[in-house]
């Protein structure tokens, strides 16, 4: 009888991107001053070697993150080893590597080319630590942004690098897997709008 339910008309949904943000409630963002963001976006694809998105569209998206972080009171610096916060941005072009993994995150850590804690210059042998649940599943055409705490990050083989904020932006259904840069820019702005705790 449950099959007698009428499915809702999904064509009525608008075409703007879904924006999901999470943060560590015990982190005092006012303790941080500087941040580093790479000049390229990691592409999670179907090749086991990572690819990096660096073209004009990628720069538009990265610059949107920069604008919002600066407006929140942080200063971008050019040396990642000296930064309080690291912001890594990835784009899911293919979910090939995630077949068979569970539908909750952080599934993206299984991609062979994903950012690794050592990228940030320290030794965090324990991997990542998300202090909050990640409840969305992977989908093609998604933009992921993770903000890591580099300032208060004890190092060691068993130490983990803490993700203090992340944003998941998605909305492409079928069709082209190319991100719509204008909609993505709007969504990045929304991610910061719904994260007022980031403001120093």
């Amino acid at each position, binding site marked *: 009888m449950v099959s007698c339910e*009428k499915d809702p008309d999904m064509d009525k*949904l608008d075409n703007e991107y879904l924006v999901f943000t999470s943060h560590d409630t015990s982190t005092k963002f006012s303790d941080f001053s500087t941040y580093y963001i790479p000049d390229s976006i990691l592409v999670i694809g179907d090749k086991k070697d990572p690819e990096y998105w660096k073209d004009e569209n990628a720069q538009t998206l990265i610059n949107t993150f920069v604008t919002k972080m600066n407006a929140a009171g942080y200063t971008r610096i050019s040396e990642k080893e000296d930064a309080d916060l690291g912001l890594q941005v990835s784009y899911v072009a293919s979910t090939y590597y995630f077949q068979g993994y569970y539908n909750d995150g952080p599934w993206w850590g299984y991609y062979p080319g994903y950012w690794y804690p050592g990228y940030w210059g320290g030794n965090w042998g324990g991997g990542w630590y998300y202090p909050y649940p990640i409840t*969305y599943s992977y989908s093609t055409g998604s933009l992921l942004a993770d903000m890591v705490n580099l300032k208060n990050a004890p190092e060691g083989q068993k130490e983990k690098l803490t993700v203090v904020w992340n944003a998941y932006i998605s*909305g492409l259904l079928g069709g082209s897997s190319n991100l719509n840069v204008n909609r993505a820019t709007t969504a990045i702005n929304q991610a910061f709008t719904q994260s007022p705790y980031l403001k120093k």
Partner: protein
Amino acid sequence: MKTIKYFTLRLMAVAAIAIAFALPAKAQVTPFTYFNVDWQFNAPISNNFANKASGWGMNFEGGYYVLPDLSIGAFINYHTNNEYISRQTLPISNSAALTTDQQHSVFQLPFGFATHYRFSDGACQPYIGLKLGANYTKMSSDFYIYEVKDNTWGFYVSPEIGMNIYPWTNSIGFHLAAFYSYSTNKGTVFNYDMDKLNNFGFRVGVAF
């Protein structure tokens, strides 16, 4: 036949039908039972989740007349009400937020005991009825490729007035009814709380 005082306006409304068809004394296929299969229109009364009325539902019921005018039987019906919710930022927890638009749905599946008291056993059989039972209701939000839902159960009660009309002997007839329903279901999706369900509506279908 009962005296005319029981029919009043209802009799006037079906008088044209009664005249058009020669009305035999007893017209049901099986005189001591009734069965209805109806299309249902349902309007929620402020369930705080999906308040748009719709015609996406059906009702199935049947009864046996244990007394000449009193039947006991069973029913099951289902109905879906949807409502589009425009884009907003939803607090998911104290650490997470989600911005999206949504399609809300309330799918109700009540079933249980049904009783009719009819005022005539002739070709036109107006009645008052009561349904009592359980109500499975799913409240769900659909957005992008996701669905967040809450499956709920509650107690269900629904009074109704209606009429079974049998224009032809030993043949199929028609059914009309108006109903109100109340159930105790409670559910939560995101920051939407649904506490008890009140609906009203009508049914049109066949009787045999």
